[in-house]
């Protein structure tokens, strides 16, 4: 239930698994809606999108059909931290999602509000619609986003709502509260939307799209959507003065909001208070579509009253006569502490009920989509849940962080969350996950076939790059400075030298000139990271051993008197599934782990 980014991936994944999936959502027309900034990807987030695609999900295909400004972030850094990002034409994106869902077999869409859950024998087995109609099901995936007791703040105004203009799901929120699930409250904000024609574009610096856009989906050959530029402007002293003078009118600063906001996405009020020494803050002016009159000013979300928003916006270069289409606001909403979920995102307290998306305390379309896919695939599986580990993908990092550590602010993906970052790259998401998805029954034939072809040609390229060698003399003749030590160096060896680029080598080996972006990135990673990748492979092998040590779901921690009360309580809240997961719980000690491992061994011998 819920036709947001989590719900769409969940429904599509369940249908791909062969289940009869029904997507119940308020309005058919808002399926695939980007509630906030119309952009997909970024550093860390882009990795998630490519992983969703490797598992045959829909997000990457949708953005490839609707992206109007593709940019590879961190292009000058190594392949592990490059992040594909694209701004979307909001309408095209929505249309793409809706048509991808329409093409999907086994998937039915029902336009309705869900009022309640059907619970029988401690199992969730369907939902009740506001019409009173009942829909029975083997499993329910709940992806209601911020619709749980959402409350909008703008200055002194309070509007109970999800997104502006949509009704909040308070009945369902009360139902979940009655189940005594641990709930928390978070907040997030959005900036005003501006009218395109009212902006003085000529006065602004522009940021163009990449000359050669790299698609998100492994199945897309080329981006065909027209590409546009964004404007760049910034706040100034006058802006800051207007905001500072009115700071107590901001909903956040008047103390009206209890929920905790994300530190990486502060409102403009926050930026001015916390970083008072900064003279200006950058703003990206991002058109929301090719034929859309709306512009999203990235960097200035605000919960000030409308007149103050008008006043500060007009102090900004290029926005002197700006017209606001809709004012910014902050929104507070409930989330369920994800430590009450298993690794397949099923509620431990009520089997058959899966939670995915913003309701679990995350923020972002990509984080929502990734969870939806895990929940939908697991709910539809007859052979156990879809488990992706931290060493296999960012999806694994996301799910493990949520269920092991919980959230204290809206959770967003960053590459620094992934300890095996050098191996988990956007370029090799398919190598990592498509075979796993295929074995699980989640990947369609077309993709499995395409992967097979692509993978064999990569393997051939890889061996060629290892076996094709030249002597130091030959290298010197080509202008590469290498030690004259008589050692023959392979293409990979040469590529690992900081002074040698792919372009240099392509002059000698023409096949390197027409590599796909993924192949080039993979070669580069294998060359630059070689020693580090080996060490990482060892670390991963060690990590997997501890992941393999299962802790029974009903394990009795009170049988371990030498555990400190605090550690025991944390173990009880999180109920880790493996010894590895236990080690990632905050506050664990090596001694407690050792004790636990011995006790596990003992109990498995007794059994």
């Amino acid at each position: 239930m819920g036709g947001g980014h989590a719900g769409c991936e969940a429904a599509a994944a369940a249908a791909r698994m062969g289940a009869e999936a029904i997507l119940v959502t308020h309005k058919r027309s808002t399926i695939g809606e980007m509630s906030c900034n119309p952009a997909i990807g970024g550093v860390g987030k882009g990795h998630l999108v490519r992983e969703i695609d490797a598992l045959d999900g829909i997000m990457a295909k949708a953005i490839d059909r609707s992206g109007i400004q593709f940019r590879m972030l961190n292009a000058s850094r190594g392949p592990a931290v490059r992040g594909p990002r694209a701004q979307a034409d909001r309408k095209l994106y929505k249309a793409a999602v809706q048509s991808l869902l329409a093409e999907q077999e086994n998937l039915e869409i029902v336009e309705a509000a869900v009022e309640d859950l059907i619970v029988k024998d401690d199992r969730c087995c369907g939902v009740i619609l506001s019409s009173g109609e009942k829909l029975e099901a083997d499993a329910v995936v709940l992806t209601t986003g911020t619709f749980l007791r959402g409350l909008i703040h703008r200055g002194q105004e309070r509007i109970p709502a999800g997104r502006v203009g949509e009704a909040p799901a308070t009945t369902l929120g009360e139902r979940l509260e009655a189940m005594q699930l641990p709930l928390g409250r978070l907040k997030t904000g959005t900036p005003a939307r501006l009218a395109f024609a009212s902006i003085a574009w000529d006065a602004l610096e522009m940021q163009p799209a990449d000359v050669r856009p790299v698609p998100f989906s492994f199945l897309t050959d080329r981006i065909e959507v027209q590409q546009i530029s964004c404007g760049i402007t910034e706040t100034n002293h006058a802006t800051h003065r207007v905001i500072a003078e009115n700071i107590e009118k901001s909903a956040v600063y008047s103390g009206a909001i209890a929920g905790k906001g994300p530190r990486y996405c502060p409102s403009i009020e926050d930026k001015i208070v916390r970083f008072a020494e900064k003279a200006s803050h950058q703003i990206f002016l991002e058109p929301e579509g090719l034929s859309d009159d709306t512009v999203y000013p990235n960097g200035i979300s605000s919960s000030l009253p409308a007149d103050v928003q008008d006043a500060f916006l007009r102090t900004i270069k290029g926005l002197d006569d700006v017209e606001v289409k809709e004012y910014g606001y902050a929104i507070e909403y409930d989330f369920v502490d994800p430590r009450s979920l298993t690794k397949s995102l099923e509620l431990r307290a009520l089997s058959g009920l899966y939670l995915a998306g913003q309701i679990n305390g995350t923020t972002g379309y990509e984080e929502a989509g990734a969870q939806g896919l895990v929940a939908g695939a697991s709910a539809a599986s007859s052979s156990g849940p879809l488990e992706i580990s931290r060493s296999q993908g960012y999806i694994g990092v996301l799910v493990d962080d949520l269920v092991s550590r919980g959230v204290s602010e809206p959770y967003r993906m960053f590459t620094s969350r992934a300890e095996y970052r050098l191996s988990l790259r956007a370029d090799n998401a398919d190598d990592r996950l498509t075979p796993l998805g295929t074995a699980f029954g989640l990947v369609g034939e077309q993709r499995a076939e395409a992967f097979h072809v692509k993978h064999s040609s990569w393997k051939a390229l890889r061996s060629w790059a290892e076996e094709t060698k030249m002597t130091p003399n030959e290298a010197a003749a080509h202008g590469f400075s290498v030690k004259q030590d008589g050692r023959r160096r392979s293409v990979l060896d040469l590529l690992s030298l900081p002074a040698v680029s792919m372009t240099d080598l392509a002059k000698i080996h023409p096949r390197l000139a027409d590599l796909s972006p993924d192949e080039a990135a993979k070669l580069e990673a294998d060359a630059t990271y070689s020693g580090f990748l080996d060490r990482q492979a060892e670390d991963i092998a060690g990590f997997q051993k501890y992941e393999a040590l299962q802790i029974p779901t009903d394990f009795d921690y009170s049988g371990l008197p030498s555990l400190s009360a605090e550690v025991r309580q944390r173990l009880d809240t999180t109920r880790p599934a493996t010894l590895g997961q236990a080690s990632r719980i905050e506050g664990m000690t090596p001694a407690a782990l050792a004790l636990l491992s011995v006790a596990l061994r003992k109990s498995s011998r007794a059994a």
Partner: protein
Amino acid sequence: MSATIFAKASGSGRSGVAVYRISGPEAGRVLSTLTGSTGKPRAARRVTVRDGDGAQVDDGLALWFPGPASFTGEDVAELQLHGSIAVERRLTEVLTGLGIEPAGPGAFSMRAFANGKMDLTQAEGLSDLLEAETELQLKQALAGHSGQLRALADEWRGLLISALAQLEAAVDFPDEEDVPAQIAERALPLVRDVRTALSDQLATAARARRVAEGVTIAILGPPNAGKSSLFNRLVADERAIVSPEEGTTRDVVSERVELHGHLVSFLDTAGVREDPSSSVEATGIGLAVRAAEQADLRLLCYPSGAGDLPGWLQSYRRDGDIIVRTKSDLSGELDGYSSLDDQSVERLSLQIRARLDDLAAPGLAASERQAGLIRAALVSLDGFEASIEAAPELGSETIRHAATRLEELTGRIAPDDVLGDIFSSFCIGK
């Protein structure tokens, strides 16, 4: 977690033989580097253990247990060496230099358990685990010196996290104007500070150990230089045999004395020369040279009035060593020394005292394991500049590795603090 680790497996203390265990994928390579080969599986073999440069560390027995038929289920190498503190220290240095990490409390048992190797009925398997429990509790009880070390390690880790935050901010927030693109320059001073602090700490760790265990001073020189006579004067006792016949001292003779408030072991050694006349003498020379190399300070003896110190003797000289021109009563040389002249012996004693105050000073007494972890962190950070040049994100890897070693030192398992540091230092968010 499957990094290769090592630890002394036999009980601590000054037992005759010490058993060192190395476990993990690199164990075979390490055994070959140290002893020339791995030898046959599960067969004891006499070996000479040498460091990467071929210098001898000790001799003893080696055993090779390829996994999975080993105690931990991984490849395991075992070395049985002399139970001396100098050997333990040297071996720890060599192993950490090879990238092998000191095992944390319970690490062998954890691995044995993870590989399905641990049988609870086997007392052997449990012993290091039980030791770990008490060790940790002991450490916590002893808030004194080890508490201070923990606080320091936390401080270094904090600096590394800040350095990492600088690097990671640039990676995770590439479009933010507040995050400068050239961030390595910001991280480098922090990394340098930590490197300095780590090497200072290693130096004080060695000094602190010498307070407890004593300073070793070797007397080295050609036969008949008057070494044994000097030794006797310094230990104020007639222990070594003095003889006009060359080659009388064949073994290393050692005497522990208290000198100016320090515990000092003087070592009298066989005379060294380039062309030994017998294999017995050659063995004695070998022992002498080794003792001299492992000592904390050397007194290089050469008769005064016999010309310059020969090159071979110079080659053993390290910073701070004392050159003793002997038998000055015969040559009349003014700044020479004579065992027959009380005043010159007193002068030498005062010179030694100045060195002792340098070599041994109270500090945050670090165990071999602690020193090993500090060294491992340092080795990793030494590679920072090179790795960041290869790719900026590799710089993060080296820092992360070092920070993990420091976490092991403090015994904390910390969730990632990097993001917290990023958000408090940069204005991020669009």
